[in-house]
Structure formats: C-alpha cells, structure tokens
C-alpha cells in the first residue's frame, strides 16, 4: 500500500499534464494572443477585476481602493491626453510595474508574451478600444527634464500654491486640503488625495518623470485634472520636482510666506 502511495504524485503529474495540454499557449497571432490573454487574465487578474472586467471580482469587496473597471475604458495612469484611452504601452507598464503599496502587484515576473496577451485581452473588455473615433491617441511627450535644483523646486512650490494644488493635497502636501474630504471618483466613491510627503504612500508618481506625466495627463475618473494647457512645460517640470522633493522629506512650507507667494 505504501509503495502505491509513492506513485500518487506521479499520477497527479500525468493528470496535470493532460489537463495542461488542453490549454492554449501563445503563438504570436492576435486571436491566439487574446485567447491566451483571457486564460492568464482568468488566473491572475479575475479575482480582483472580475471575469468580465467590471472591477468587482471576489476580492474587490474587501479592498478599500476598488480595482479598475475595464469596461468603461477609464484609466488613470496613462501617457495620453486627458479623457483619452491609454496606449498599449501604458497598460503594459502598469502590469509590469504594478501600483506601489496598493493591491495591484507588479507582474514583472510574468513572461513578456503573457503580459502582452493580457493587454490584448483587456482591450476587448471595453468597446471604446475598437471605436475608431477614439483614435489617434494624443500622447504626451516627456520633454527634456528641468534639472532637479533648489531653484526649480522653489518655482514648483509657487506654482503648486498658485494652481490650488493645496486645495486637495494640502498646503504641506499631506493630502489634507480643505477639499479633500469631499472628493469622489467618477463612480461616486470617496477618494483620498495622495499624501505627497510620504514616499511609501505615493503609488505611481515615484519619479519626477512620472509626476510630470500625471500633471500633463491628469488622472481620468478622478478630480485630478490635466495641467497640460494650464502650465507651461517648464512649470510642470518645476512642480514635478517640488512634489518629488516633498515625498523625499524636503519640507518647504513656510506659513508666513503663503500670502506673499499667492500674490506673485
């Protein structure tokens, strides 16, 4: 009997291989890629994002920040103009890098082919991706960065205050601005402005480049607007440098100077 028991793992292996053989694998063509993406999505993404991409997978109920609803094509972190769909690369980057300290992990260890397949499949979940009127996408080019200097940070602080960023993110950047308690996302759910002074709390804007991108594109589906038409390219880099400095323990706020700064 004992000897037979030792064969059980072998039998399990044979059965596993049989079932595996019935599954699909990526061979490069679009249809197969979508099919493969569906299988990977079902295994890795569906517990949160739901089988149909509605963001209401079984895990979602226990998360404070709800998973993305892929059906409406609203994506926060993009490189495209406000209100537009993301590029394939935007989606791929989110899968690859995850969203820091949220429930969205980095799937960098997933094979590149599978990551691309998941992107292809996610695009089938919203009709907007196949709507020709959504294209071409207007992508934001990351220009030559303004050097991360004290002067740039100082200028960024002025713009931060003058643009009213403090209204949500707070004068000190701690996410406690007067409007913070009233903010909601596009689905009407309460949303918390990022505390910019805690690097471990910053989810995506963890480099000046990513902050610049967020300032340029805004975050679709949230109260965070795009400043591409409001601030010059240089100003957005200055604010990005300032926000980056805030999250790295550089404190600049001087309450006595606020009024004078606001008048500039």
């Amino acid at each position, binding site marked *: 009997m004992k000897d037979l028991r*030792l064969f059980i*793992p072998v039998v399990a292996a044979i059965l596993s291989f049989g079932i*595996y053989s019935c*599954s699909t694998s990526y061979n490069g063509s679009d249809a197969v890629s979508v099919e493969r993406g569906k*299988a990977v999505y079902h295994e890795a993404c569906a517990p949160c994002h739901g089988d149909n991409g509605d963001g209401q997978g079984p*895990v979602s109920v226990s*998360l404070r920040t709800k998973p993305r609803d892929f059906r409406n094509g609203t994506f926060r972190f993009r490189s495209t103009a406000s209100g537009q769909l993301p590029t394939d690369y935007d989606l791929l980057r989110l899968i690859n890098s*995850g969203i820091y*300290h949220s*429930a969205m992990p980095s799937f960098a260890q997933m094979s590149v082919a599978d990551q691309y397949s998941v992107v292809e499949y996610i695009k089938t979940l919203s009709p907007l991706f196949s709507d020709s009127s959504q294209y071409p996408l207007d992508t934001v080019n990351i220009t030559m960065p303004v050097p991360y200097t004290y002067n740039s940070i100082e200028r960024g602080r002025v713009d931060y205050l003058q643009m009213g960023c403090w209204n949500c993110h707070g004068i000190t950047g701690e996410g406690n601005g007067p409007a913070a308690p009233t903010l909601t996302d596009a689905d009407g759910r309460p949303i918390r402005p990022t505390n910019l002074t805690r690097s471990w709390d910053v989810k995506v804007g963890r480099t000046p480049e990513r902050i610049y991108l967020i300032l340029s594109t805004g975050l679709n589906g949230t109260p965070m607007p795009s400043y591409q038409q409001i601030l010059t390219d240089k100003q957005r880099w200055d604010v990005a440098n300032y926000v980056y400095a805030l999250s790295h323990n550089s404190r600049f706020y001087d309450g006595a100077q606020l009024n004078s700064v606001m008048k500039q």
Partner: protein
Amino acid sequence: MFHRHTLPLLLSQTILFTTLSFFAGTSYGIPLFARKYHVSCFRCHTVPPVLNDFGRRFQINSYQLPGTDEAQPIWSQEPLSLSFVFYPSFVSDHVVTTFDGKQTSSNTLAFEPSGLDLFTAGTVAKHLSYFLAAPIGITGPGKFAPTIETMSIMFNNLLGPDGQSNFNFRFGRFRFFNTFPDNTSLVESADYLIYDYEPATPVQGDLLISDPQWAASAYGFFPQIMDGLRYEVGVSNGTAGGINLNDNEATFLMVEQTKYIDNAPFRFGLYFYGGKQMLVDSTFNNLSRAGFALEFNDPWTKHFDLSFQYMSAFDDNVGGAIQTMTGGFLGLNVLIVPEKFFVYGRYDFTNVKQTAEKQNQFTLGARYHFAANVGAYLELSLLNDNNPSNSTDTKSTLTTLGVLVGF
C-alpha cells in the same frame, strides 16, 4: 456563565486595548510577501491571516504571483524577504471542572507568552523556491528557543510554460493545503477541535492532519476548471520526522473546487488523511480522517463569509479498541469595514462515539486594524467538554485581548 470578575476584567482590558491601540497605531511595517511585492497585506488576505481568492492562488503557485514563474533569486532582490510577527496577548481563563459530582474551579489572569515568528521565503532559481517559518518561543522563565515550524523546498510550475501552476512538488516540513488550514483561522485563541483530535499516544511524532509535518507532496491549481480547482496529494512521516515510514506514515489527499456565484466564491473541498502510527506499547494504530469542507460567501452583500467543515475519524487501536469521532465546525466572518474592522464567530463540535465524550466550543471575536500590519482583537471563547466515561465535565471561559504586529 460569567465569573463575577469578568466585567471588571473586560473593563480593564478595554482600557488596555485602547492604550495598546494608541501605540500600535504609530507603528508601520510590511510583512514578508507584502514587502517583497510592494503591495498591501490585503492583496492576499481578507483579513490576515484569512486568505482571499487571490491569496489562495498565490499560495498554490508556491508563494509566487498567479500566472508567473519567478526566476530572480532572493539574494538579488530588494528588499530581502524576511519578516517578523509579534503577537502578545492578555488572557483571562475561568475553568470549572466537575468530577464525580464534585466541582472545582480556577481562575487565570496572565500575559500570554507569545514569542516572535520569523518568516522568510523566496525564489532560489526558476522552478525552485523555499518557505521557512521559525518561531522563537518561550520555553520557561526567561528562556527562549527557536524552532522550525515549516521548512520546505518547492519545485514549482514543473510541467507548463511560465505561470502554469498546475503541477508543483515540495518536500520538507509543511502544512498540507487544506480548505481551512489551522494557521489561517481568524480565531486566535481557540484551536479547531477536530484538528487536535489524537486519541492514541504515539511513540514519537504525531499524525495530525493540520500540523506541520515532514512530508512530500504534489499540488497544483487549474484555473480553467470553473473558477479554479486546487489539489494536493502527499506522503507524510508525521510531525517529528526521522521515523521509519513502516512505523509512522500517512497519506494526504485533497481536492477543492471553487465557483464564483455573482463574484462571490463558493468552495467545496474533499480530503482524506490516513495511515498508521506506532504507539508507546509498540502496537500499531491505523487511523483515518476524512471529510468535506464548504465555504459560502454571500453573493448579495458579499460581507458574510460562512464556512463549514465536517470530519469523520477512525482509529483501530485506542487502548486496544476501535474509536470513532465525528466533528466539525461552523464559522462566520463578517466584514464590517474593508481593511479595518471585522467580527467573527465559530462553533466547533466533536463527538466520540465509544466514550460518549462531547466537546462544544463557541468563540466570538472582533478585530480592528490600525494599519494593514497592525491589528488588535478581543475574543471570548466558551468550551464545554463532557466525558461520561470518566465522569468529568469541564467548562472554560477564555477571554483574550491580543495585538498582532508584523513587519
């Protein structure tokens, strides 16, 4: 039912709870896998240590993200996969024992020695990973001793392409995957009664279905079968290891099917654990444990998680005679505020046919998380053990206030 000191005790514990909460709230840290993947603990836990559906897939993929097969070795990763968990608690235990009609009682008020759990896990190479849990426990006044609770080497994703976790193999000392493992219960102060059932006295090494044991097993996950089928088959040498398999061995089989009903998981599992063990009198006891498990998340509010497990136990040599036991538990976890506040309860029962011994245990608790890795809980557990064969009836009322800090 309540002892006269219970109310002042609860009052003092509430004050202690509040005080601990204040200090706990200032602490930040991230336990092992959350730190490794830069995600919140609630990525895998509805409430630690209860695994959500993603956590179950992570676990069965050899502690790697579903759909992935990691290759980056642990020594090249930042930060290092190492974490600690503290879990000090304060207990009030009131026990009333009736023996041959004579009643005695005892009261215990104590800070429970908790020790420190150390965890590390990670990838060594592609298809090869490990998991190690080493609690440093208190063995006496001022004495601490480290022990190896689980230590396993896992060969993962052996048959499929990247991320196909349908066949994995592990060996070492580990807990078999069960639908409701002992270490993922939200109830901290009371064990599952059915898992502790061991009527015969082995020479060394226990054959307990839910304890970490020296074993080898094959396990895996098929996401394409409804919403996921998990399985494990293994051979165990018992908790002590190093014993001839002819003297101490068991086989474990488990299959568990999940189906989402309106995005609420419904789970059904079957399991078997059986083998033989040498007893102190050099005779053998052939034993088997078999049963089924059910989990039902309510599909309407999705805040109620109901669990049920039934087990039938058979031993053919308990003092030279056959002994059978049936038992199980019914549990309910209620999510009040996501990632913050939970209440829960569990009813355990066992019934030994030959001795007519009956155990009933009811536990009620509440858990609050100040941060993902910092929680405090208050539990009340009532146990009634009635054993007519030796004319003993024991009732205990256990109140526990505990804090859990992981970093």
